C-alpha cells in the first residue's frame, strides 16, 4: 500500500485533511479533532495508507511543532513575559511541579525506579500546546481568563522543557544503548553520543547559549543583509533556513529541534524582523501543524492498545484524572470562577507533544526502557486525541448544566424588567453599544460568556449577566419573548451565528442587529437573513481615511462627503456581491467593476461637475455656463 514518494504521502495527508476537517467542523467538533480522526483513518492501524507499523512518522510531524514553537517564541517578548510572570511562574510552576510529583509518586506506587518515575512525571506534567492553543483560539476562548491561564501554564511548560532535557541524562540507570527508536529520526548521528552524563548536560547548556548568542549577534545582521536585497522570497527562504538550521544543530547535540527554534524565537522577539518572520513562517506552520495532528492520530499504536486495553485505558484515565484534579485545585487557588476553572482544567488535562520528544530522548539516554516508552507514548497520544473531546464535553454537557445553575437565580429578577433590548457580548465592541444605550436610559439586558469579565463589570456597577445567548432557555429568561431588539456583538463569529439562528427560530419578532468582523462575515450574516449588519472596522477605517485626506490638504467637508459616498457604495456592493460569492469568478469580476465605479464616482466629484452628482448644486459650472458668458 505504501508508495514511497513524497508526493504520494502528501496526497494522502492532504486528502484526509480536506475530507475530514470540514466534516468535523460542520459537526461542531473543531479542526483539531478532524485532523486527529484523519490521522487515525490513514494510519497504519486503519487504512494503512502511510507508514508501516514500525515506521515512525512523527518526524514528519515534528516540523509543524518546530515551527509553532518558533512562532510562540516570537510572540514572547521579554516585556510580555514580565507582565505575565505571576501566572506563568506561579500557576505554571505549581502545575508542573505538583503534577510531576503526583505522577512520580504514582510511578513509584506502580513499582518503577525513582529515576524512571521522575522522568515520566516530568514528561507527563506537560500538556499539548498545539491542541490547546489551536482549539481555544478556534472557539474564541483565548482572551478569557481560562484561556489566558492556559496560555501561561503552556508557556511555563515550554520553557520547563529546557531544564527537563538537561536533567534527563542525569537520571540514567542503564548503560547507554542505541535501540533504533528515535522521535526525530536524526538522533543516530549526535555529536554527544557516548559522552558521560555531565558532559551531555554541559553540551545542552552550551547549545542553548549558542542559540541565544547567535540570535543576538549573528542572525539579525544576516537578516539585515537579506532584507537589503529587497527580494521577499529570499527573506522567506532565510526564515526557513533559520528554522531548519537550528533544528539540525539541535538534533546534532541531542536536543529537541522544537526547543531550539523556540529559543531562537524568543531571542528574535525583540528584533525588527519579528513580524516579517511571523508572517513568513505562519502559513508553513498552519499546514504543518495540521500535519502534526494527523501524525498524532496516525501514531497511536492500536496494536499495543488492543493487546492491553485495560492497562492503557487505566493509565489514560489516571493521567487525565491526576492532571485535572491538580489543575482545578490551582484554578481555585488563582481565583478562577467555576466555569472558567472547568474550561481551564478540561482544556489542559492531556499529555503533550513534548512527551514524544522527551520519551525518545529518555530512551536514548537509558533512562527509560523500550518496554515503558511504547505504552507511555500510546497513553500520551490517546490522551491528546481525547483532549478535543473533553473540551467538547465541557462545552456541550457540563457548561450548559452548570450555566443554568449559575444564570438561573440571577436571571429570575431580570424577567420582571422585560427590557426592550438584549445585548449579547459585552467585549470591546458590545461595550460601547451597551453603554450608549444605557446612557440613553434604554433598558438593556446584557449577556456575556466570560464570567470573570461579568464579575469585573458588575464591580464597576454595570448589570451584566453571565450566560451563553445561543441557548433558548437563557434567551427566554433574558426576556427575548418581549424584547424588541437583539444585538449580537460577541467575539466569536460562529457563536454569533448560533445566537442568531436560535433567536430567529424561537423569537421571530426580535429585530436583530449584528456585528460582523469583515466583509465575508457580513456575507454570512446576510445569508442567514440578518437585515442589519455592521462591519466593525468600516467606520473607523473611513474616519482614518478622512483624516488622512485632510492631512494632505483636502477640505474636511469634501473628505467627509467622499467617505460617505464611499461607504454608501460599499454597503450597496456588499448587498449585491453576497449573491455572487459562490461563483468566485463572477464575484471577482463584479467586485473589480464596483471598485472601479466607486473610484470613478468619487474622482468625478473631486474634478467637479462632470455628471450631476448629489452635491452638484454646490457646483457653479452650470451657472457660469448660463450667466458667466454674458459678462
Amino acid at each position, binding site marked *: 500500500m505504501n508508495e514511497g514518494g513524497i508526493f504520494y504521502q502528501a496526497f494522502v495527508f492532504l486528502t484526509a485533511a480536506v475530507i475530514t476537517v470540514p466534516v468535523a467542523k460542520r459537526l461542531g467538533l473543531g479542526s483539531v479533532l478532524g485532523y486527529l480522526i484523519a490521522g487515525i483513518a490513514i494510519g497504519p492501524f486503519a487504512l494503512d495508507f502511510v507508514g508501516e507499523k514500525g515506521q515512525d512518522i512523527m518526524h514528519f510531524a515534528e516540523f509543524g511543532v518546530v515551527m509553532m514553537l518558533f512562532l510562540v517564541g516570537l510572540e514572547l517578548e521579554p516585556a510580555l513575559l514580565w507582565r505575565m510572570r505571576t501566572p506563568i511562574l506561579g500557576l505554571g510552576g505549581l502545575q508542573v511541579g505538583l503534577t510531576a510529583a503526583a505522577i512520580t509518586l504514582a510511578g513509584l506506587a506502580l513499582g518503577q525506579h525513582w529515576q524512571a518515575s521522575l522522568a515520566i512525571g516530568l514528561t507527563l506534567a506537560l500538556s499539548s500546546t498545539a491542541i490547546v492553543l489551536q482549539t481555544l483560539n478556534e472557539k474564541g476562548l483565548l482572551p478569557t481568563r481560562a484561556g489566558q491561564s492556559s496560555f501561561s501554564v503552556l508557556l511555563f511548560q515550554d520553557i520547563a522543557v529546557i531544564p527537563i532535557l538537561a536533567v534527563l541524562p542525569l537520571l540514567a540507570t542503564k548503560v547507554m544503548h542505541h535501540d533504533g527508536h528515535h522521535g526525530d529520526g536524526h538522533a543516530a548521528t549526535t555529536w554527544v553520543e557516548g559522552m558521560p552524563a555531565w558532559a551531555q548536560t554541559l553540551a545542552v547548556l552550551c547549545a542553548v547559549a549558542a542559540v541565544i548568542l547567535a540570535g543576538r549577534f549573528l542572525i539579525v545582521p544576516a537578516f539585515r543583509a537579506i532584507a537589503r536585497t529587497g527580494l521577499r522570497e529570499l527573506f522567506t527562504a532565510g526564515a526557513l533556513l533559520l528554522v531548519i538550521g537550528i533544528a539540525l544543530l539541535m538534533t546534532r547535540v541531542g536536543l529537541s529541534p522544537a526547543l531550539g527554534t523556540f529559543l531562537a524565537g524568543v531571542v528574535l522577539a525583540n528584533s525588527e524582523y519579528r513580524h516579517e518572520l511571523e508572517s513568513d513562517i505562519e502559513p508553513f506552520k498552519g499546514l504543518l501543524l495540521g500535519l502534526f495532528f494527523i501524525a498524532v492520530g496516525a501514531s497511536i499504536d492500536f496494536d499495543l492498545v488492543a493487546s492491553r486495553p485495560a492497562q492503557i485505558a487505566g493509565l489514560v484515565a489516571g493521567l487525565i484524572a491526576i492532571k485535572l484534579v491538580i489543575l482545578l485545585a490551582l484554578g481555585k487557588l488563582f481565583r478562577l470562577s467555576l466555569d472558567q476553572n472547568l474550561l481551564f482544567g478540561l482544556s489542559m488535562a492531556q499529555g503533550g507533544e513534548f512527551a514524544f520528544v522527551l520519551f525518545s530522548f529518555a530512551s536514548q539516554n537509558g533512562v527509560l526502557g523500550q518496554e515503558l516508552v511504547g505504552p507511555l507514548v500510546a497513553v500520551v497520544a490517546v490522551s491528546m486525541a481525547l483532549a478535543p473531546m473533553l473540551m467538547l464535553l465541557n462545552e456541550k454537557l457540563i457548561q450548559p448544566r452548570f450555566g443554568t445553575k449559575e444564570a438561573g437565580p440571577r436571571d429570575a429578577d431580570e424577567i420582571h424588567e422585560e427590557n426592550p433590548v438584549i445585548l449579547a457580548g459585552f467585549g470591546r465592541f458590545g461595550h460601547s453599544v451597551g453603554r450608549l444605550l444605557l446612557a440613553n436610559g434604554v433598558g438593556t439586558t446584557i449577556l456575556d460568556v466570560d464570567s470573570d469579565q461579568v464579575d469585573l463589570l458588575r464591580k464597576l456597577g454595570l448589570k451584566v449577566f453571565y450566560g451563553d445567548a445561543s441557548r433558548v432557555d437563557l434567551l427566554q429568561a433574558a426576556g427575548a419573548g418581549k424584547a424588541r431588539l437583539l444585538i449580537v456583538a460577541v467575539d466569536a463569529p460562529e457563536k454569533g451565528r448560533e445566537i442568531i439562528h436560535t433567536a430567529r427560530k424561537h423569537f421571530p419578532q426580535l429585530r436583530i442587529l449584528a456585528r460582523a468582523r469583515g466583509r465575508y462575515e457580513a456575507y454570512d450574516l446576510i445569508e442567514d437573513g440578518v437585515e442589519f449588519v455592521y462591519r466593525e472596522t468600516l467606520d473607523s477605517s473611513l474616519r482614518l481615511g478622512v483624516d488622512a485626506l485632510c492631512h494632505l490638504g483636502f477640505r474636511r467637508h469634501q473628505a467627509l462627503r467622499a467617505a*460617505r459616498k464611499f461607504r454608501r457604495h460599499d454597503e450597496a456592493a456588499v448587498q449585491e456581491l453576497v449573491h455572487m460569492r459562490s461563483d468566485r469568478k463572477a464575484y471577482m469580476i463584479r467586485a473589480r467593476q464596483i471598485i472601479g465605479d466607486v473610484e470613478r464616482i468619487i474622482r468625478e466629484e473631486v474634478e467637479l461637475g462632470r455628471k*450631476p452628482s*448629489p*452635491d*452638484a*448644486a*454646490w457646483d457653479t459650472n*452650470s*451657472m457660469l455656463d*448660463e450667466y458667466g458668458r454674458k459678462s
Partner: protein
Amino acid sequence: MHSILILFAHPALERSRVNVRLAAAARDLPGVTFHDLYQRYPDFDIDVAREQELLESHDIVVMQHPFYWYSTPALIKEWEDLVLQHGWAYGSGGTALAGKTMLNALTAGAPEEAYCRVGRNRYTVRELLAPLEQTALLCGMDYLPPFIVHATHTLDASDIDRHAADYRRVLEGLRDGVLDRDAVKDAVRLNADLDVALPATEEG
C-alpha cells in the same frame, strides 16, 4: 385633489410641545406625504435624487418647522442648497417646480405683536421669510402667506389643540382646492382668520 408634501424639520422633536402636535394632526391626512427631514437625514447627507422625485410627484410643498433666528432650522437651508438645482428648479430648463405651491407652517416663541415695526423684532414674519418667498417665486411657484402659531411658550393644551385643528383644516383646504388664495393673498398669516380663507365647516 392636490397632493401635499410636508417637509418637516425639527432638530429636537423629542422636546417639542407645539410642532409635535401639529405634526400629529397632519401626519395621517389622506393625500399628504409627511417627510421628516431630520429623521431621514440625521447627518445632513441628503439624497438629492430622491428629494427631487418627491417634489416632482407633489403639487403643494409645505415646510413645517420652528422659527429659528428668523428663518428655518439648518437642514432646510442645506436641503434648498442641494435640492433646488440650477437647470432643474430654476435657470434655463429649470421648470420642475413651476406651477406648484409653497407654504411655510411655523411656530414662533414670541407673540404676534413682537413682529411689527414697533415691536422687538421690527419686521413681520412674512417679511422675514422674504428669502423663502423669493426662492419659491424664482422657481415659478405660488407662495402663500405663512401659517404661524405665535407665543408658543404661553399656550396651554387646548390652545395647541385648536392650532392643530386649524392646521389640519388648512391642509385639507389646500388638498381639496377650496382655499381662497385671493382672499388671503396679502394676509400677515394664513390662519389670521380661517373663515375668510376656507368655506365654513360644521364646527365653525
